[in-house]
């Protein structure tokens, strides 16, 4: 894991009103790998991605034991130095393709601008590259698209443009914050396939933020499940889907309706309750009030981190074999 492109250690983000959005998480994204950050709304996924880019809103306080990009510590970089990295070696695409492009400029001028800003050179050369990349992300007649304004493009096209724009400077890391949430399912599949192709071709590392477990199953090499500002379980995708160990992950996977497995009229799975508010001095497991396996130890102190398998970690008082014991217990 020392070869990781992006290593985040002990990241904490707090807001002025005392809310702790991210409470000491560690994530590593290796080169050429897709790392999915999953969790329900408000668990701190987006805040984590913004914190990595140092793009948090004013009033947010970020502390970290380390944020290393290509082995270089970037947590202490000045705004100017960070500006050089953003859009260049680390690029980002957003959830809303309909509003992520500036309506006042043509596609071409927006794409060329990023390139000229970071790499210099003439605008004509940048436009050539933009046309090439638009073709690469599957847009027909790229020359024509360059002269168009965002409102002339559909949502799927705009998201392709956003991806092409993110690729302008050959980034090593692409942070994608729910890139397909606003798109319909067929376009969603196209965009995901495109991301996979680009990853294989360019060796991109992708930090994919989503709440859609279907996307995770399809895209992820490695998964981190977030709950209330903590990574409660992380591991290789196959391992995590095969043996979900944290009760939250367990519950989350039980909530996914599988056609054929779920009978008509049968209630869909759900996790009762809502995410608690995490203020300063919160201790214990944040999931305890919603957890069927909760025990007195969950109420206070730190939750121990445990190993459930190779590189498969989770944070819970339960041993890794609790699901098996539960099954045998129920049978007995």
């Amino acid at each position, binding site marked *: 894991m020392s070869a990781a492109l992006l290593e985040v250690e002990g990241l904490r983000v707090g807001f002025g009103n005392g809310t702790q959005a991210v409470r000491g998480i560690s994530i590593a994204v290796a080169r050429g790998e897709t790392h999915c950050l999953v969790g329900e709304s408000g668990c701190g996924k987006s805040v984590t991605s913004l914190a990595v880019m140092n793009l948090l809103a004013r009033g947010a306080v970020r502390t970290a034991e380390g944020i290393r990009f290509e082995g270089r510590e970037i947590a202490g970089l000045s705004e100017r130095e960070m500006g050089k990295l*953003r859009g260049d070696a680390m690029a980002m695409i957003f959830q809303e393709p309909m509003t992520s492009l*500036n*309506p*006042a400029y043509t596609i071409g001028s927006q794409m060329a601008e*990023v390139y000229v800003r970071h790499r210099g050179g003439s605008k004509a050369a940048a436009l050539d590259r933009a046309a090439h990349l638009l073709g690469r992300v599957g847009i027909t007649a790229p020359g024509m698209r360059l002269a168009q304004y*965002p409102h002339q493009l559909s949502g799927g096209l705009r998201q392709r443009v956003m991806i092409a724009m993110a690729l302008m400077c050959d980034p090593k890391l692409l942070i994608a914050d729910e890139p397909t949430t606003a798109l319909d399912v067929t376009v969603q599949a196209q965009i995901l396939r495109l991301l996979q192709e680009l990853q294989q071709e360019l060796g991109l590392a992708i930090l994919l933020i989503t709440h859609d477990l279907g996307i995770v199953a399809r895209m992820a090499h490695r998964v981190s499940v977030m709950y209330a500002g903590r990574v409660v379980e992380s591991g290789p995708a196959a391992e995590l889907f095969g043996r979900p160990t944290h009760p939250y992950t367990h519950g989350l996977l039980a909530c996914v309706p599988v056609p054929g497995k779920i009978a008509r009229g049968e209630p869909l799975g759900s996790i009762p309750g809502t995410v608690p508010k995490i203020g300063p001095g919160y201790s214990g497991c944040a999931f305890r009030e919603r957890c069927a396996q909760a025990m007195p130890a969950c109420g206070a102190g730190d939750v121990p981190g445990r190993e459930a398998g190779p590189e498969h970690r989770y944070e819970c008082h339960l041993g890794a074999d609790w699901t098996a014991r539960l099954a045998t217990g129920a049978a007995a």
Partner: protein
Amino acid sequence: MRLPSVRLLAAGLGTAIVAIVLVAGLLAPWITPYDPFITNLDARMIPPSFMEGGRPENFLGTDQLGRDYFSRLIYGARISMLIGIATVITSGLIGITLGVLGGFFGGRVDDAVMFAITCRLSIPLILVALAVVGLVGSSLNVVVLTLGLLLWDRFAVVARSTTMQVRNLDYVAAAWAAGCSQAHILLREVLPNIIHHLVIVATLEMALAILLEAALSFLGLGVPPPLPSWGLMIAEAKEYMFFSPWVIMVPGISLFVLVLGINFMGDGLRDMLGAQRDV
């Protein structure tokens, strides 16, 4: 083919009026038949050529000093447009700068901007303009500066609220993520996307500035005579309006038509730009 709507006609008419007045003002020295300052006491208060007693050399007649009224009207257009445009530029610069900064940075900066706007709104416009012009003395520059320093509030309010909306849009976040600097985001991401609101404010403020100049000149505190401002022409004409009503009607109607034209143009711009932004 669909007939153009009333709104479109009004917008076209307004733009045409503004364009005509602007061109007339710009080309005043070349299109006026006489020097507007040359008096001719033998030919005072001649009615317009289309009225009884008028003569063909003076299309709109002459005033109480025998100056050609048509020439004075056209030079007056020059002053009105000059005041309108210069005031809008001055007040626009102040208002947009304050509004964008307040809206973009929020917090303390915004508090300061809002305080300035509130202070400005509590100042009675005409009274302060009168006091300043009365103290400093009236000249074209003083009028422009006074109006410019007083009329920025609407620019600031509109710039602030629209900046606040634009600031939180994804393309601004995307620009941050693409490594753009703060100055770049303010000038190239935010400003182009609020400018269409500000253009509309500019037309309203221009009409207001022209009317205020006329009011100040009417009160004798605007543009000093013998400059041919429309407000001054109305003021000078009021003594004669009983027997020679055209001397007050000509500048009065001109002022009315110009201000109406500017407002029509502003409405038209709003419809046009508003429709374009609705994606």
